[in-house]
């Protein structure tokens, strides 16, 4: 298990992304899957930095775990901010035109699409997003 805990600030985004990128590479993932992990983690961390805490008051912790029974990579993203289940957000309207399309709402949708599983848990005052990636 590897973990990284840093303040929930957008300036730390690339450090988090590099961390999971290294985990996924060490895990033997292809470049395509490494990018999927990077994307999901960017979207999740950006949400936490934007909404979880009142300015600069908390941390984000990312843990990369190896699944004992399989070659799946488990990425857990934890914060101690306001209760927020990002996964409950409504899906965007993918068929809308340029004029009608809403400029937000795609982050969580992309997490759901690139991760094989996504689970949200509120426990002990923490939000925990558990993302599971298969190698292909």
């Amino acid at each position, binding site marked *: 298990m590897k973990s990284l805990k840093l303040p929930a600030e*957008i*300036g730390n*985004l*690339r450090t988090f*992304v590099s961390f999971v990128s290294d985990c996924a590479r060490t895990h033997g993932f292809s470049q*395509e899957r490494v*990018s999927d992990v*990077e*994307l999901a983690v*960017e*979207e999740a961390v*950006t949400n936490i930095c934007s909404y979880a805490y009142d300015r600069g008051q908390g941390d984000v912790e990312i843990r990369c775990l190896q699944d004992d029974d399989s070659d799946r990579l488990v990425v857990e993203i934890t914060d101690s901010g306001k209760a927020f289940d990002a996964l409950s957000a409504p899906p*965007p309207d*993918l*068929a*809308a*035109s*340029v*004029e009608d*399309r809403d*400029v*937000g709402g*795609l*982050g969580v*949708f*992309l997490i759901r*699409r*690139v991760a094989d599983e996504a689970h949200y848990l509120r426990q002990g005052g923490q939000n925990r997003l558990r993302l599971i990636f298969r190698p292909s």
Partner: protein
Amino acid sequence: MQISVRKDSETLVVSVQGRMDTLSAPEFDSKMEGLFGQGEKKVVLDFGKLEYVSSAGLRSILVAAKKAKAAGGSVCCCDLQSMVKKVFDLSGFAAMVPVFDSVEEALSR
């Protein structure tokens, strides 16, 4: 992220290189804002050297497309690399914004 701009007749070719993420997307926004402010409205986004895009980058592309349309112009994207193409497909952007295989094809449309 690096951005370079060249003019081809009435069309502006904006080449974006590297990663378009939450941190770099605002730079793209201000670049495009400046270009639209100068009266440019027909834009080809050359993504041949763009390795990565997140929802923040998609938002910036959509904002640019909306501004161009409002001004009576257009934005198209070309030469999408594998990661960017996947995100365009997943997000519906591939069906919403015109996408071409190459800059040449986009310019000759």
